[in-house]
């Protein structure tokens, strides 16, 4: 191998590494300011101020929170299974970051443009349950265990309908590559036909992220803090970061699948001069606002109601929609 080729390889590697660092820092900053936005939005909806004192408009509050959590003592229960106990938050957080490798943030800004991007995303998001179930088991506490069990059955249930919704979108776009899904032509009838699935997808990602009104795994009123009762300091912070990073990830996924990713909204070609990453960010923020809005306005579901919604309403509906989508595409000869 010549020396030129080695330098070339090194440069490619450095470029990749730079990409990864920029992406991770971006996601972490997003997580930090998502917690800030959540408190501000909740405050506004409940006619309060939200964080106000640290920095101008309380903008430094997330950083202060981070420093506080960092300087606290990590407590590991003596009866806990130590390795699994410490592994659980790490797994949850790492999975939330790893999935960003395939998300197309801009026209030619995607870390790994793989052929099975959407399957990769689905696989990674279905693994998130392990962090929670391991935390629940390793804590060796009744509350944590109940929280872990609740979370496991909830996430497995809603994954089924999420998978079927993804199948609908794939049928319409004809590719598993996320960049091609964004760029696939979508006539207006297809958008209207997919709109109900977008709503179901939004509700499913609420359940998948264990967010209100489906936050039963945490359920303060019944099982104190659910799977994370025993966690403190940095281990707790990792759970927190992982949960919010997952929210951003799911919003990005919904953006890519339904809202046209980094393209300008409603096919407004004269807005093409705005960088795609701006559109991508704005659309993701809109869905994140929906998360916060739902938390501020809806009471928590009861567990049997949650299961009924998942298995008896969403599953038949999405299954019907898959058959309907395939039939429509075949009948109108619109198969991609």
């Amino acid at each position, binding site marked *: 191998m010549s020396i030129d080729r080695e330098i070339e390889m090194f440069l490619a590697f450095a470029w990749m590494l730079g990409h990864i660092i920029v992406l991770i820092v971006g996601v972490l900053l997003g997580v930090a300011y998502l917690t800030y936005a959540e408190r501000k939005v909740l405050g506004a909806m409940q006619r309060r101020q939200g964080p106000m004192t640290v920095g101008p408009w309380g903008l430094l509050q997330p950083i202060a929170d981070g420093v506080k959590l960092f300087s606290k003592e990590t407590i590991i229960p003596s009866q806990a299974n130590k390795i*699994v106990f410490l592994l659980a938050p790490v797994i949850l957080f790492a999975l939330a970051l790893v999935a960003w490798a395939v998300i197309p943030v801009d026209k030619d800004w995607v870390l790994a443009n793989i052929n099975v991007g959407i399957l*990769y995303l689905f696989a990674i998001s279905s693994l998130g349950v392990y962090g929670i179930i391991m935390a629940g088991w390793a804590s060796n506490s009744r509350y944590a265990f109940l929280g872990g069990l609740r979370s496991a059955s909830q996430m497995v249930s809603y994954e089924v309908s999420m998978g079927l919704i993804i199948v609908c979108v794939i049928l319409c776009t004809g590719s*598993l590559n996320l960049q091609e899904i964004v760029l696939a032509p979508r006539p207006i009838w297809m958008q209207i036909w997919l709109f109900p699935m977008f709503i179901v997808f939004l509700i499913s990602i609420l359940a998948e992220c264990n967010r209100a009104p489906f936050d039963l795994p945490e359920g303060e009123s019944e099982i104190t803090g659910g799977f994370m009762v025993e966690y403190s300091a940095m281990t707790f912070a990792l759970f927190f970061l992982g949960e919010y990073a997952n929210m951003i990830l799911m919003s990005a996924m919904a953006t890519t699948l339904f809202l046209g990713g980094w393209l300008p909204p409603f096919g407004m070609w004269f807005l093409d001069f705005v960088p795609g990453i701006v559109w991508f960010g704005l659309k993701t923020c809109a869905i994140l606002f929906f998360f916060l809005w739902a938390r501020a306005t809806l009471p928590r579901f009861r567990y049997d109601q949650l299961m009924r919604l998942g298995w008896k309403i969403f599953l038949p509906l999405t299954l019907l929609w898959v058959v309907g989508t395939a039939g429509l595409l075949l009948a109108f000869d619109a198969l991609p």
Partner: protein
Amino acid sequence: MILAAVFYLFAFILLLSGFLVITARNPVHSVLFLILAFFNAAGLFVLLGAEFIAMILVIVYVGAVAVLFLFVVMMLDIDFAHLRKGAMQYVPLGLLVGVILLTELVISVSAWQFNSLSQQNLAVPEIGLNAATNTQALGAVLYTQYVYAFQLAGLILLVAMIGAIVLTHRVRPGVRKQSIESQNARRPEEAMEILKVQSGAGIS
């Protein structure tokens, strides 16, 4: 060179975690090692260029099957040390089954390896599929040439699913479950009665 190193890394962790699945004392640890083994198998598939199969392996086995395993094993309260006591007497039987399986595997693989026809098929299973992506190639074979076998597999799975539901679905008496239909069908007239109560008289 890097590819070979990655292959040996995946293969080593796969074999090690596979071994730990059967030797770990705690059944939950066994399941966690099983998940690690699945993961490394998926990594090997990616190295082979079979990305679709790798992802399906992770989604189906790690994302669904192993979750249920973990779920069940976590909730079981079994003293495995007690169960293990008599296990040594079954070792000869287990070894016998293992040896028979290994011999059969060796025979079938070597028969396949030395067959010139299968060697030709190995490189290009179908003409023209070389250029297509994984998913397209699989779909093109699965839904044309093997469509009946595919449908049959689907039917078998359907029967298994119906069987599982029939076995577990039973009407239990004495359970006060919410009936959403009857609750929605209730009208104010039948549910409540408005009385005019005289002050100091009370309701009889």
